[in-house]
């Protein structure tokens, strides 16, 4: 299977004043199409940094990150933005919906930025997705009128509306109770199966990892190993 993401010896350093803080210390990782991958590790292990590099939100200090066959270090800021718009969908820990727009408009927003579809086409696609995430009745609601789980469903719909090859989710269930979180993961998994969309999500929650078909474990900015969820669950020595 083709690798949609290919990370090679990626190093990312942040500078805080005069101090260089290494966030990633040389990570190599391949993600193939249709994967449902969890990136696990304690806080500060570099999960979010790795996701940022894969999501073209950031570029590595050294090493390389290829997404959909493109080396992100070679791309301009504008090209990176375009890559995000057309290839990647994002799901955020705290949903990050635009509070002043309705549910429908939030989902439609990436399509408007893409400027590919006509109004009716957009409406059709948004409606279908609303149906898919079980929020058919909520199109005209504002995010503030929804529960946390409902909001994250809207965010998932927004991430999927452009039919991206890759969806990144940063701790998608961290702000949800465990039952709702499980529902959200079920939904993501289902979409992964039916739409063949690749999902990469970060988590430090064992029960969340259980949904993945592979778990990549990070510690101190380094990739520890790549295991199955069962292995990960079995190794109790891992930090929670």
């Amino acid at each position, binding site marked *: 299977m083709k690798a949609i993401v290919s990370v090679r010896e990626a190093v990312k350093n942040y500078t805080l004043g005069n101090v260089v803080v290494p966030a990633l210390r040389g990570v190599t990782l391949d993600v193939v199409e249709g994967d449902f991958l969890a990136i696990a590790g304690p806080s500060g292990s570099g999960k979010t940094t790795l996701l940022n590099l894969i999501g073209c*939100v950031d570029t590595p200090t050294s090493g390389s990150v290829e997404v959909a066959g493109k080396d992100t270090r070679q791309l301009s800021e504008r090209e990176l933005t375009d890559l995000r718009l057309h290839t990647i969908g994002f799901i955020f820990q705290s949903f990050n919906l635009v509070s002043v727009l309705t549910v429908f408009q939030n989902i439609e927003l990436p399509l408007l*930025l893409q400027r590919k579809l006509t109004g009716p086409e957009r409406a059709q696609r948004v409606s279908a997705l609303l149906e898919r995430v079980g929020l058919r009745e909520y199109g005209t609601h504002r995010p503030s009128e929804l529960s946390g789980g409902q909001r994250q469903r809207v965010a998932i719909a927004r991430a999927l509306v452009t039919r991206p090859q890759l969806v990144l989710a940063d701790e998608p269930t961290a702000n949800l109770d465990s039952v709702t979180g499980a529902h959200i993961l079920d939904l993501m998994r289902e979409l992964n199966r039916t739409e063949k969309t690749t999902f990469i999500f970060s988590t430090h929650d064992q029960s969340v990892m259980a949904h993945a078909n592979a778990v990549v474990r990070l510690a101190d900015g380094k990739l520890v190993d790549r295991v199955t969820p069962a292995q990960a669950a079995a190794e109790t020595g891992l930090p929670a």
Partner: protein
Amino acid sequence: MRAWLATLGVVAQMAFRNLFASRLKTIIVGGIIFFGGLLVVAGNSLLDSLVASMSRSVIGSVAGHIQVYNAKSKDTLEVMGRMMMGDPDLSQLDDFAKVRASLLQVENVKSVVPMGISGALVTSGNTIDLALEKLRNAVKARRDAKTDAQRAEAETRVASEKGHVRQIVSVLQGDLKNAKAVLDERTIDPADVAAVNRAASDAFWQDFDKEPFEALEFLENRIASQAADADLLFLNYIGTDFQAFQKSFDRMKIVEGTMVPAGKRGFLFAKHVYEEQLKLKAARRLDQIKEGTENEGETIATDPDLKRMVRENVSQVREILLQLDAAKTVDFRAKLQRELPSQETDVGKLLAAFFQTDDQNFRGRYDFFYKELAPSLELYRVRIGDVLTIKAFTRSGYVQSVNVPVYGTFEFQGLEKSTLAGALNLMDMVSFRELYGFMSGEKLAEIQALQKAAGAREVSRENAEAELFGSKAEETEQPPIARTEPGSAGRSPSRGGAGTLSGSPRRIEATTTPGVAPVMHDLGESLGGKLQREEARSRVFPSDEVERGVVLNAAVILKNPKKIKETIVAIEAQGKKDGLTLKAIDWQAAAGLIGQFVNVIRIVLYVAILIIFLIALVIINNALVMATLERVKEIGTLRAIGAQRRFILAMLVVESIVVGFIFGGLGAGLGVLLVSVVGKIGIPAKSDVWFFFFSGPRLYPFIGTSNIIAAFAIVLLVSAFSSFYPAWIAMRVTPRQAMQEEE
């Protein structure tokens, strides 16, 4: 394209929703912009209306749309708002006919009015001078009487005039007594006191008829000089062609008297000057009190100005007393005793009591004054029909005097109360030229005739010294006094001439400097003054002389007043073509300080607007920065899901512009409403200056479309400027910031 529009739709929608979401920010920013829009529209409209009405005043009264003068002039032309200090140094335009022909070539020029503006100090007749002149005439009539009837008639007149002079002398005696009470004894010349006491004595009047001319001379030399009731007044005048003036400035209307006929010498007083400066002061004050109480809603009890006028009327009855001869004194005493009522016999005290008015009795006293007392008084120091002698320094520095009959008074419709519009009197062009020192054909002929009569001849410059101070000097130093009539030596106003009978037109002296007056007066008299005075009434100048002569400037009336700038260019170009050095300026420049006044207000308004918008800029900027910082996460999210920076920029700019448009529009709308409501009611003119600026009693402001456009432009500019910095902040938000959790 459609998708692009849809994007814009989303941007707009997000902008609108954001505005609603952060109401406080929107209200603060919007409020400032609202106020700014209101100020721009209302302020500018008011100012434009003011300029428009003021331009009507300036254009309609003297300036015309454009003023033309000689480009070689050292100073710039100012037809209005001149200070008392001399005339601007203007070069003359030699031939008005030529100038006019050139100007009329310019397509937009409707008519041209010749002008020259200058001024002279004028001393009006002294009451005692006039009384003494009447007495002298009566004495002469008695001397020259052929029949008994004539002698008896003259005798009565002498007696009456003697009574008047004695009355004046007794007023003077009273003045001296008062002076002694308040002044240091040494400042009063004992000789003056002695002279007044002598003139007041019965012995003096018993001896009067023995040597009447000697007695008169004593009175003229020793007494008249002490009765200084003659005021100096400065008359500004425009020399012009009356007919062209009236036609071009159609707001001009004759109030009293008649228009000066074509080709004649003549003088028209501005009604305002006539009332303000030439009317009996007590009467003028009564008019002003009436105006204040009846038209301006003030009361004598509360208004300090009116109170002061009442006080002045009470204390300054002398002006009236001096006019009263024996018969009038008796008449006034009886009338005032009845009216007040009072047992007092002193007319001065009776008058003082009469003028002690309050809000209750004022109207009755006012009517009584005009009905019973005024007919016996000279209400104006110059009457319509009098011949005014104006003496002015010519440009070359010698004094020139001209006699001009006063035909009447005029005012400009709508500007009746304006001091500014009513400050300029009108004079015929021929007289003006003479006063200014230009030689008219008539004057040249007169000089030639005089030279012939005096045996004078042209002297070349090289030989002048020898000729003048050599052996033949006596001939040229012939004292002019030798020509005066017997018995009239001494004080100037005692000559006969036009005013020999009472009731016939008097002569009023007008000179530039009082000190020069007596000397120059006699010179003027000897140089054919009598001839001049007769000529002043009867002579008709050929229009050619009026037309072809020298003028200082010319007012140009346009067919299309909107094209002033273009026409100025065209006039100067046409002048060049015709070999004339013409300088054309618009009415605002011609109005001098008054024209500048509008610019000053405009600058003040613009500075105020600038300051308000600068403050607005800071506040709006601040509010937008705060709002942007609050939205960092949202912006980061938008960037993460694929929004380019320009999308973020567009979103913020649209927000600002929407606020600008809505609130600026509301402000401008309120401004329009305000101005149109005020435009219906009008802003009342508080004082005479405002009558001029408002071109009438009220200013009716109107809305100019340019002001609304300006308001929007400024509002948009400010909105755009104030969103620069917040937009810059927003554009630097990275998509990574969407991922950061506030913990």
